[in-house]
Structures are given as C-alpha cells and as structure tokens.
C-alpha cells in the first residue's frame, strides 16, 4: 500500500519540479527545483530496491553535480531573468514528431522482447550493495576502469578550461604588494 502512495507522490512531485526546471525564467529557481527533483528520483530507486544506486544518486547528483552548478553560478549573473526568443516553429514540430516516433518505438521494444533472460540475476538474502559490488568488480571491471579514466580526463579538462587566465590570483591584490615594495625601496 505504501508503495503505491509513495510512487504517486514521488512521480507527481518530480514531474512538477522538472516542469519548473524546464519552464522557469530564473536560473536559481530552475537549479533548486532540479536538485529537489533529483532527491525525489533517488526515492524511486529506493522504492525499486536499488539501494546502492539511490545512495550514489544522492551523493553524485545532489551532492556533486548540483554543487558544481552552484559554483558555476558564481561566474554567471544568476539573478537576472533570462530573455529568450522563440525559435523557428517548423523545426520544433519536425523534431517533436521525430522524437514521438522514437518514443513509440521505445515502448514497442519490450513487447517484442518478452523472452528477456536475466544475465546477472539478483541473489536472495544478499544486500543490494554486495550484489552490485560483486557484479561491478567481476563482469564490469573494464567499463568501470574506463569510466574512472574518463572522470580523470573530465576533471583535468574542467580544471584547464575553467582555470584559464586564473594564474594571477583573484584574492590578493598584487599591485598593493608592489606599492609596499616601492615604499620600502624609497625608505
């Protein structure tokens, strides 16, 4: 019973919050509602018995990615409302029709694949974290390492891109140092 209530509550709240994210004119509102929607999505994962995935969602999405967005917000003017021109409508309708077709194909997919067999079945009496760990470090070890390498490359790229022209420090005023030095020299 509680599963039904939780499912409908979470889905209504997530849909509402993500609608705010997509339709809002203010960046700050959009980011806050996106963070709240991600917390509720981790609730979906807990409902589905994917405990570890839910914890990862909370830590990585809500903890890391949203913190990254809010740090990046310091560089942009977040309080100003965004003014946007409406785009060419024919393109929107064309792309919308194409994506509707893709959506129909996605829903038709499971009908044609009724005889799916579980490749890595879950074990009874074993926690989700242990199960995930065993499969991740045996069957998916190479993709795991590749993902680690990709995150390293992304980290270096982020540092280099965002850190350009930051070799002169923003916090300490170098000209003030110079003035002190020249004053000492004059003495």
């Amino acid at each position, binding site marked *: 019973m509680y599963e039904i209530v939780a499912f409908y509550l979470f889905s209504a709240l997530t*849909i509402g919050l993500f609608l705010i994210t997509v339709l809002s004119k203010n960046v700050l509102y959009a980011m806050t509602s996106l963070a709240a929607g991600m917390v509720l999505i981790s609730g979906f994962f807990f409902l589905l018995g*994917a405990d570890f995935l839910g914890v990862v969602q909370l830590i990585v999405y809500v903890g890391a990615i949203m913190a990254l967005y809010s740090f990046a917000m310091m560089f942009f003017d977040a309080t100003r409302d965004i003014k946007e021109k409406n785009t060419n409508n024919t393109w929107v309708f064309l792309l919308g029709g194409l994506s509707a077709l893709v959506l129909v194909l996605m829903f038709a997919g499971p009908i044609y694949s009724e005889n799916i067999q579980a*490749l890595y079945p879950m074990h009874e009496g074993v926690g989700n974290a242990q199960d995930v760990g065993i*499969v991740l470090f045996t069957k998916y070890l190479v993709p795991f390492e590749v993902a680690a390498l990709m995150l390293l490359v992304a980290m270096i790229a982020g540092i280099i891109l965002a850190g350009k022209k930051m070799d002169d420090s923003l916090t300490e005023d170098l000209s003030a140092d110079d003035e002190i030095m020249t004053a000492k020299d004059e003495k």
Partner: protein
Amino acid sequence: MIGLSHYLIVSAILFSIGLVGVLRRRNLLMLFFATEVMLNAVNIAFAAISHYYNDLTGQMFAFFIIAVAASEVAVGLGILIVLYKKHGSLDLDDLANMRG
C-alpha cells in the same frame, strides 16, 4: 499494484519534459539542466527494468550513466565559463557566429 509500465510511463513523461526543454530553451545553462532531466528519466527506466526482470544489468548501466553525466557536467561547465568570459552571455543566438 505498481507495475513496470507505471515506472516506464513516469520515465517517458520525464524524458519528454527534458526533450521539451532541449527544444525550447535558448540558454546554454538551461539546456544543460534539461539534459540532466533526460538522463535522470532514463535512469529511472533502467532501475525499474532491473527490478522487474530481476537483473542487475540495468543498475550497472545507470551507474555508468551517472559517471558520464558527472564528466559531462565538469567539461561542459568549463566550456560555459570560457564562453561567458568571451561573449558575456550564454544565449545560443548570440553564439551563432559561424553561420555561412
């Protein structure tokens, strides 16, 4: 009782919301937010299928999607900061200076 189709429908609705955002917004930061919405919707579908087919593969793919999303955000925000320093705005129409 909540079945697989319930979760798939919620996931499809969230995905369409993200798609509307990608098609409609002209601000690059808002485009990033819409992409995050779409990635999260797909994660819900993966977790639901993993639960109802009793298979861990869906959860594995959701983990890798989260890793891809994290690196995408790191690189993308770096590019956005460089663009903002150069142009002073994140609007796609202002950035369309390569039109032939």
